[in-house]
């Protein structure tokens, strides 16, 4: 049986908890400042307050999460830097990133409804983000396909790379697509209000807060990937072992001997999984 991954050291556990607390605090302060302390905008009035939430989330989704996912995928693909850690990081980053991308679309849509009066408009940013979401969903779908770990990592990394290459192309084409469009004042509203004073600080805090939140979610998700992979490897061996142990002394002795059935891994488990050895100390 694969040995369990080491527990978080005392120091690491403290860091993670502090990170979580700090991000929650930063987000809370941002919300407080954004909703109550900062003044309404001259043109956008109270609607401007979403600027403390939507652009930070969008930034995290595209540049931080997706960028990190693409970068770690490339690092995995390049044989010189290949390591299972990169694959796990890519998986974690892309999943958390998908949540942020979906939220970018939702907050963007709500903001659009508030300022333009429509729930959706084919403006450059919303459209590009919608496509990014589909690309990320494709990545998640590929990760779900049952296969051995290496093949899955390879496939996902390629999808991430192709998606990363596609994003700037999509960005340019959609941008031209909307700007060359005659008429349609609705489609290019000024979502960039003039930011000054307390608004600027709050916006900065917003970026910091959501970045911290992303970092915390990423660390937790990464740990989950590590633990889940370990469970994948051991679940079958363990289940068989427990089954035999139910049978009493004879069965227990049989359970202690690696048999052909434990040696052949289940379809989902890592190819070459080691057969269940004798239970420790029995």
């Amino acid at each position, binding site marked *: 049986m694969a040995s369990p991954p080491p527990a978080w050291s005392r120091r690491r556990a403290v860091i993670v908890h502090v990170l979580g607390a700090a991000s929650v605090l930063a987000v809370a302060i941002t919300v407080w400042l954004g909703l109550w302390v900062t003044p309404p905008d001259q043109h956008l009035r109270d609607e401007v307050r979403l600027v403390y939430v939507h652009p930070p989330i969008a930034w995290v989704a595209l540049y931080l999460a997706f960028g990190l996912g693409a970068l770690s995928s490339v690092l995995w693909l390049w044989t010189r830097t290949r390591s299972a850690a990169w694959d796990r990081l890519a998986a974690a980053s892309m999943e958390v990133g998908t949540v942020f991308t979906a*939220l970018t679309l939702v907050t963007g849509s709500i903001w659009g409804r508030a300022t333009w009066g429509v729930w959706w408009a084919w403006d450059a940013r919303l459209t590009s983000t919608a496509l990014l979401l589909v690309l990320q969903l494709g990545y998640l779908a590929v990760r779900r396909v049952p296969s051995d770990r290496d093949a899955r990592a390879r496939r996902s990394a390629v999808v991430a790379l192709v998606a990363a290459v596609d994003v700037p192309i999509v960005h340019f084409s959609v941008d031209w697509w909307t700007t060359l469009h005659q008429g349609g004042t609705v489609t290019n509203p000024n979502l960039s209000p003039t930011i000054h004073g307390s608004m600027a600080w709050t916006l900065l805090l917003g970026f910091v807060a959501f970045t911290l939140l992303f970092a915390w*979610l990423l660390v937790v998700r990464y740990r989950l990937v590590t633990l889940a992979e370990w469970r994948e490897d051991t679940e079958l061996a363990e289940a068989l072992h427990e089954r035999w142990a139910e049978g009493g002394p004879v069965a227990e002795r049989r359970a202690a001997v690696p048999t052909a059935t434990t040696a052949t891994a289940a379809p989902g488990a890592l190819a070459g999984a080691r057969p269940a050895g004798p239970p420790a100390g029995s």
Partner: protein
Amino acid sequence: MGYVDAGYAVALSVLAGYGVVLWRRRRRLEAIRAKLAARRSP
């Protein structure tokens, strides 16, 4: 202010919910991990 509140509410609740789900799953797996690690050590 309705839309602004809705925007904040959605963003925060989704992120909070996601965070809670992840944290809980992690705690459950860590418990299993700890149990098996204890079993292995003599």
